[in-house]
């Protein structure tokens, strides 16, 4: 078997991004080929540590390919490439930024160095800012930029404090040192968490997400709402599980923040009457839940929750973007019955929504089941009760929205004549295929989730406290 | 298996019920007349009326109109066939209280069906009033009987009557309850002041507005048998039935005539008044009675 170096996943898009400038005409080709090659590279990655520039760790930059990174990369690159296939005229100017974004996101997942992470974070943010500018809501994008800049400042501040205390930037070394003497690092950890909280859309810091995603098109929605959010959460999962050591007090305070996000996000989504608003606020709430799990020692569950939400949100934002474009808006009333004339899209959207709401037959259910089960195993009943209440709210608004989109408007007999993608649309079949494949994947993993669960187990075998992970699988019931 | 003989007894019971009650209602008319200082008809006037009506041509409003009436009469006859009287128990072992109540309700429902099928809104209004009233008097009545059943550990009517012969009448155990049951009985018989659903001047005799000729005749028969069932139930459940037939009949007549006399001297209530009365007085008394009874006789464990 081939054994490819993971740096390719970062370098290749970067090189393409800059060479593209010379070949404007075939920019799209660069984008598609580049992202497809990246999938190919990811498939042939071997787990291990890769040193950059020949320095032994903890010196120099290393790239770390473990199961966690590998499957995150796989999902990220597949989703990204799928989005690139859908690229339209509008996005052609964004080829370079897209490729840079891809490189930065891959780097975020792979890197084993905290400062390197900061660099990738900044590159990703700047790429995102350029991408976001394509929706022409500049003041919203400005809001994003300010929030992002404060966030990264806080991250770097925290990192500086940590460096002062421990004298290293290597993640593995940092973990060793921190585990040995954790005291005094709390302020830095809090600062880093807040820095990243801006990116993962935790609540008091996520106003930018509302501004951007409310107006997102079929391109920005999946990119910012699903891919960026997911990758940032994976980074949080890496940092707050593998590297930082927190005492119970910090954990509690940060969990409180995530809980507020969960409750507030669900309430805001419940109140919304527009498709993309519902999606974005529910995304905020989900981010709260994911962060909560990661912080409280359930990283494996958090991991599959991130991946499953990422996929579902991707499909939904994609279709919501097209719908809003065709119908000239995305209020429920305007879109009533839109799926009647677009049953395939409707099917994909429905599956993704039901999976997100955690209904059986879909992957989301398996995740939610294991999540609650693991919480209950540690004899905590209040947290599951709270999460279930949030799911109740989520299920109601999700179904209300989906049913509204299926229902024929009063007095209409033939169905609403909004074609999500007209027959003339260039990417019609690509959208069909991608949304169908992803939603069928959600069903497939819902019916046979055991592989996905065992990957999660391999990626995040034991919890932070060393508790073994117990999973309910379809095959064998309960198992460790 | 039920012997043919007991079916014969049962049929005889139904026939006797009709004969006796029709005769008694003639007496009732006489008494009412005397109270109102009239002469009144002869005591067998009701027999005359029924035969006369049955021989008259009439109009019908369709097959449901006919069917409902048949159900009404069949329900009444079927109920009477189960009714024990003193030592005479037609269908031994099956004179279950709930069964009799529900079978009697089938007769009531048949009557309502027929009235509704007449197409006359006055009949529908009358039925509605009747059924509303029905909730008012059946509810306390049945709760009281359920208390009795719980106490005597049997729901057989003859069984309850027989136990009262030994342990004393229920009226001594639950005086308030018997008062309520009597008010309910008075309502069931459709006597004033509870005859709002018949109110001739308001709803033109309510459910009966469209009945004439043989329909009225059949309805009359059904009504008399139903009255027999209601009073017999009261006597059996609250007044200890009777050791002998004579004792039973004596109690029967006493109850019936008391009700008639009361009806003769009262005015009619308006429908709201009836409804409010029933949901205040009898139900309140019933709650009190049930509490008292449970304290005195049933153990709260």
């Amino acid at each position, binding site marked *: 078997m081939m054994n490819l170096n993971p740096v390719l996943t970062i370098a290749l898009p970067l090189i393409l991004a800059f060479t593209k400038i010379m070949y404007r005409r075939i920019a799209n080709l660069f984008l598609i080929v580049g992202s497809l090659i990246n999938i190919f590279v990811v498939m042939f990655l071997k787990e291990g540590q890769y040193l950059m520039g020949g320095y032994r760790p903890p010196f120099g930059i290393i790239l770390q390919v473990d199961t966690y990174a590998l499957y995150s990369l796989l999902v990220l690159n597949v989703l990204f490439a799928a989005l690139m296939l859908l690229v339209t005229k509008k996005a052609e100017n964004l080829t370079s930024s897209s490729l840079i974004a891809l490189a930065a996101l891959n780097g975020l997942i792979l890197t084993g160095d905290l*400062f390197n992470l900061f660099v990738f974070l900044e590159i990703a943010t700047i790429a995102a*800012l350029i991408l976001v500018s394509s929706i022409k809501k500049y*003041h919203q994008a*400005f809001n994003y*930029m*300010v929030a992002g*800049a404060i966030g990264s400042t806080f991250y*770097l*501040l925290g990192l500086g404090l940590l460096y002062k205390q421990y004298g290293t930037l290597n993640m593995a070394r940092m973990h060793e040192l921190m585990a040995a003497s954790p005291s005094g690092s709390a302020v830095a950890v809090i600062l880093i968490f807040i820095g990243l909280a801006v990116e993962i859309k935790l609540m008091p810091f996520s106003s930018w997400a509302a501004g951007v995603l409310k107006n997102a098109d079929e391109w920005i929605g999946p990119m910012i709402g699903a891919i960026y959010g997911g990758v940032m959460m994976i980074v949080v999962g890496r940092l707050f599980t593998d590297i930082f050591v927190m005492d119970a007090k910090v954990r509690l305070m940060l969990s409180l923040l995530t809980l507020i996000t969960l409750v507030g996000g669900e309430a805001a989504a419940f109140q919304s009457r527009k498709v993309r608003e519902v999606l974005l606020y529910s995304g905020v709430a989900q981010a709260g839940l994911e962060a909560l799990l990661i912080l409280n020692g359930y990283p494996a569950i958090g991991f599959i929750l991130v991946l499953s939400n990422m996929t579902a949100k991707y499909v939904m934002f994609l279709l919501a973007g097209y719908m809003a474009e065709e119908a000239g808006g995305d209020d429920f009333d305007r879109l009533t019955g839109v799926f009647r004339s677009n049953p395939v899209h409707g099917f994909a959207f429905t599956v993704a929504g039901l999976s997100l709401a955690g209904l059986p037959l879909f992957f989301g259910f398996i995740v939610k089941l294991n999540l609650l089960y693991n919480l209950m195993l540690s004899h905590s009943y209040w947290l599951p009760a709270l999460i279930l209440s949030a799911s109740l709210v989520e299920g109601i608004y999700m179904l209300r929205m989906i049913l509204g989109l299926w229902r024929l408007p009063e007095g209409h007999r033939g169905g609403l004549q909004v074609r999500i993608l007209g027959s003339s649309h260039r990417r019609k079949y690509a959208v069909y295929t991608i949304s169908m494949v992803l939603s069928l994947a959600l069903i497939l993993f819902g019916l046979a989730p055991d592989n996905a669960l065992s990957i999660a187990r391999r990626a995040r075998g034991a919890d932070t406290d060393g508790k073994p992970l117990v999973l309910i699988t379809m095959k064998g019931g309960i198992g460790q | 298996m039920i012997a043919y003989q007991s079916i014969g007894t049962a049929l005889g019971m139904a026939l006797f019920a009709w004969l006796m009650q029709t005769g008694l209602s003639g007496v009732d008319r006489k008494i009412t007349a005397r109270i109102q200082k009239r002469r009144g008809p002869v005591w067998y006037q009701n027999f005359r009326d029924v035969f006369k009506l049955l021989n008259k041509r009439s109009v019908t409003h369709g097959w449901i109109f006919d069917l409902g009436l048949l159900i009404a009469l069949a329900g009444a006859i079927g109920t009477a066939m189960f009714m024990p009287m003193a030592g005479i128990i037609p269908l031994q072992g099956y004179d279950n209280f709930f069964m009799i109540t529900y079978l009697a309700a089938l007769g009531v429902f048949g009557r309502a069906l027929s009235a509704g099928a007449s197409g006359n809104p006055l009949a529908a209004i009358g039925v509605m009033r009747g059924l509303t009233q029905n909730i008012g008097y059946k509810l306390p009545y049945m709760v009281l009987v359920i208390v009795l059943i719980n106490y005597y550990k049997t729901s057989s009517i003859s069984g309850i009557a027989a136990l009262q012969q030994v342990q004393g009448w229920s009226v001594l155990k639950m005086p308030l309850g018997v008062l309520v049951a009597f008010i309910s009985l008075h309502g069931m018989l459709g006597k004033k002041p509870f005859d709002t659903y018949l109110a001739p001047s308001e709803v033109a005799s309510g459910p009966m507005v469209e009945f004439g000729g043989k329909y009225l005749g059949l309805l009359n028969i059904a009504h008399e048998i139903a009255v027999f069932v209601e009073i017999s139930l009261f006597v059996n459940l609250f007044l200890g039935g009777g050791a002998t037939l004579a004792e039973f009949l004596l109690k029967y007549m006493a109850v019936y005539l008391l009700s008639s006399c009361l009806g003769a001297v009262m005015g009619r209530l308006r429908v709201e008044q009836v409804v409010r009365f029933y949901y205040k007085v009898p139900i309140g008394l019933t709650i009190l009675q049930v509490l008292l009874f449970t304290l005195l006789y049933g153990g709260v464990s």
Partner: protein
Amino acid sequence: MMELLSLSLLFLGIYGLVTKHHILKMIVSLNVMETGLNLFITTLGYQEGQIAPILSSQFPSSALNFVDPLPQSLVLTSIVIGVGTTAVALAYAIKIFKDHGCLDLEKIEGRL
């Protein structure tokens, strides 16, 4: 002392971001904030009495009397990134001005 001074510069920047609604003022605040941060990180590696970590004819080998060079390199990167961010921000400012004719976010939001 230097740490506190640079941190106060950082807080000054944040204060500007919280209180100002004018886009250019906000960009300036951002820059002030970043400068504060960069100064702070540089001071982290500073050690009293040590010299700049530059190999020269005078100091031909990396002996122990250098200050920590890593924070300085971090800051170098950070400055570059800061420039990028500022550029994007200014580009936004131009776009916003073209769209709305003013740079006061409060007015723009009020108009929307």
